[in-house]
């Protein structure tokens, strides 16, 4: 029994790395638990540490379709759950008008006509006229899916309440049709950048994974996986440099995605080694605020010399 989870977690780590996503043990454990317990995961962390990418990779790994719902202020149920196809309904009533006349032929009075109409099913509010939106789609797939609800914190608080039924019961109640249950429970991942506090009710129903900035070793692995062309020495230097930047007091810390972009930039420039001039010139790939760039520019010589010193020190470990 003890052997089971450790093995599966290892499988997940390896499977993910095949798709170019290097994950820490914590992340692999979370994915394992989510698939075992059939519970959603709420993923938090600074922007650019690979929250969305995790969901994409999970979909590849489990060979399931990914269904993505991007949240924004004002998102409501007609965009997230389902909507009736009003246009189609209108069109069909127009077309079926004559049929109606046939049905009603010979009926006397309002009461009789109505009771004749009642004999028919409520055809206009059936699945044919239902436009499913991401959440409903995720519940109705045959093979299961990975449902990514991206940046929940951007949606209004009321929207969270809307999610509760889906996340805990994997069902949606549609007044006209009744309760729709999931055929196969999807793997649900919610991401948040913490622009506001997520409600307790939602948190209770989720597993919680916090992805911090990676440690140097992990970041090196990630760079190696994502930018395979990079030279070992440059890659070590680059990661040490970025790790140094993260210790400074900045408005926005460079995340993994920025490190990757930077690595690609350096490859493009055919550079073999990081020097003060090169680093200063390409800082804008790494940092997105002018103030931050100014702060870091002053520190570049120190950071470079630190990162030069560290590879030899770290290679011993």
């Amino acid at each position: 029994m003890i052997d089971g989870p450790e093995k599966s977690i290892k499988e997940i780590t390896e499977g993910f790395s095949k798709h170019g996503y290097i994950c820490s043990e914590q992340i692999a454990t979370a994915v394992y638990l989510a698939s075992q317990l059939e519970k959603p995961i709420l993923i938090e962390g600074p922007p650019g540490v690979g929250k969305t990418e995790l969901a994409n990779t999970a979909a590849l790994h489990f060979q399931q379709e990914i269904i993505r719902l991007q949240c924004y202020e004002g998102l409501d149920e007609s965009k997230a759950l389902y909507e009736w196809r009003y246009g189609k309904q209108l069109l069909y009533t127009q077309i079926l008008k004559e049929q109606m006349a046939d049905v009603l032929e010979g009926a006397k009075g309002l009461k009789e006509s109505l009771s004749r109409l009642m004999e028919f099913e409520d055809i206009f509010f059936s699945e044919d006229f239902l436009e499913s939106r991401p959440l409903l789609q995720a519940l109705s797939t045959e093979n299961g899916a990975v449902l990514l609800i991206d940046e929940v914190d951007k949606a209004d608080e009321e929207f969270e309440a809307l999610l509760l039924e889906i996340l805990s019961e994997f069902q949606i109640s549609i007044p006209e049709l009744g309760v729709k249950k999931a055929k196969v429970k999807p793997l649900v991942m919610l991401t948040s950048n913490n622009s506001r506090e997520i409600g307790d009710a939602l948190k209770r129903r989720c597993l919680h994974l916090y992805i911090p900035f990676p440690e140097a070793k992990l970041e090196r692995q990630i760079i190696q996986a994502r930018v395979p062309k990079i030279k070992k020495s440059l890659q070590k230097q680059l990661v040490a440099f970025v790790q140094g930047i993260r210790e400074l007091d900045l408005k926005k810390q460079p995340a993994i995605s920025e490190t990757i972009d930077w690595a690609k930039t350096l490859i493009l420039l055919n550079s073999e080694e990081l020097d003060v001039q090169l680093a200063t010139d390409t800082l804008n790939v790494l940092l997105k605020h002018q103030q931050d760039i100014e702060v870091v520019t002053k520190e570049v010589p120190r950071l470079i010399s630190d990162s030069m010193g560290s590879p030899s020190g770290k290679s011993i470990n």
Partner: protein
Amino acid sequence: MERVLTDFVKALRNANVRVSPAETLDAMEVIDKVGYANKGLLKRTLSIVLSKTPEEKDKFSSCFDDFFTDEIKAAVEVDLPDKKQTANDDSSDLAKTLMEGSQAEIMLAIADAGEESEIREIKYFTQRSVFTRRILEQMGVGKLEDEIMQMGSQNDGDVPSDLEQQLRSQLTGLRERVSDFVQQQFLLHGDVSGEQLREQVFKSMNMAQIDRSYLQEVHSLVRKMAKKLANMHSRRKKNFRRGKLDIRKTLRDNWVNQGTLFNLRWSYKKVDRPKILIICDVSGSVGAYARFMLMFLFSLTEVVSKIRAFVFSSNLGEVTQDFKDTQLEPAIEKALQKHGGGSTDYGQALSDFVSLCLDDIDKKTTVVILGDARNNFGPEKAHLMKLVYERAKQVYWLNPEGKYRWNTGDSVMRNYSAYCTKVFQCGSINQLERVIATLLRTAI
């Protein structure tokens, strides 16, 4: 094993990690899958299930390490020599238990003694040694020590007898175990982080007397309160959620009715969001309070978006942007350095304020002034205050000094208070809380 988990959850709650019963059930399910054998895996899984913010994860991690130390202890127990040597007939009960009883019996004895010494009452970490001592006494350690001493004196030779040696080592073991027991009980029952105690003390203390090193803790307290104030505003806006017809939405939603507009849809734009202008005195006379008031200012800018913050001693300057850009401490330092310490001139500050943002004051604006109204006998320019009062929705004055000192010396509180919606004394967090409660009641 379920007992272990529930105890652990209790310890977590004590450490201020909020764990609901539903989450406890989740944890049980998880443990079924994962088992107790791999400690690293157990920690990772429980951390995913039980702790739900980065701060909680930190607390969880240390709490877990404190709580699950059993492994190490179990390893030590194996090393202990197998003792089954009988004690003398005239030995005390404790000696007998130690020498003859099993591990479980000894643990039971400790637990009993703990019950007698009311270990549940343990609150603060400083009490740990007291309780350890008390439990040991309860178990009769004093007597045992005497016994060992006696044995030593009876034994003339240099080499102590086997029994004596055994007893000594058992006694050391017992001491360790009792202190572990107390530690664990403390995790379960005590105020582990000391937060409750500190909060209590801080709240009632005069702000000028709180040491600077506690700034962070006080900040979190003040922040809670600022959030309350901000929430009041966000609730207000819900009342304004009707009023304008959303034509696009109405048309779309009424396709169902063949275009007859049965269900009207209202636009969800919040029309009103109150503005706050807050002015803080950081001059020499309120030096001791300035940090506290700046902290409140800072916390408010953190939680309210439409706020402008100003500080002054003689000339007034805006610090909104500085506060938004940096952390608490550098922001406060910067504000104090730039504007603080000088002699007060309310007249000058008011005229600066008026020229800077009188146009910005309208009937949705709340103006809050933090200061002692000690004006160094300079010109008061109360007419400017009147101007502000007439334009703004409300003007509040929070004075950190005790009421009995208002209007003494160079304090001109009475001249300004005529043009305030309300005036409060606000020198400690408790008072601040009361002020905010009053604001909440009256502001709507």
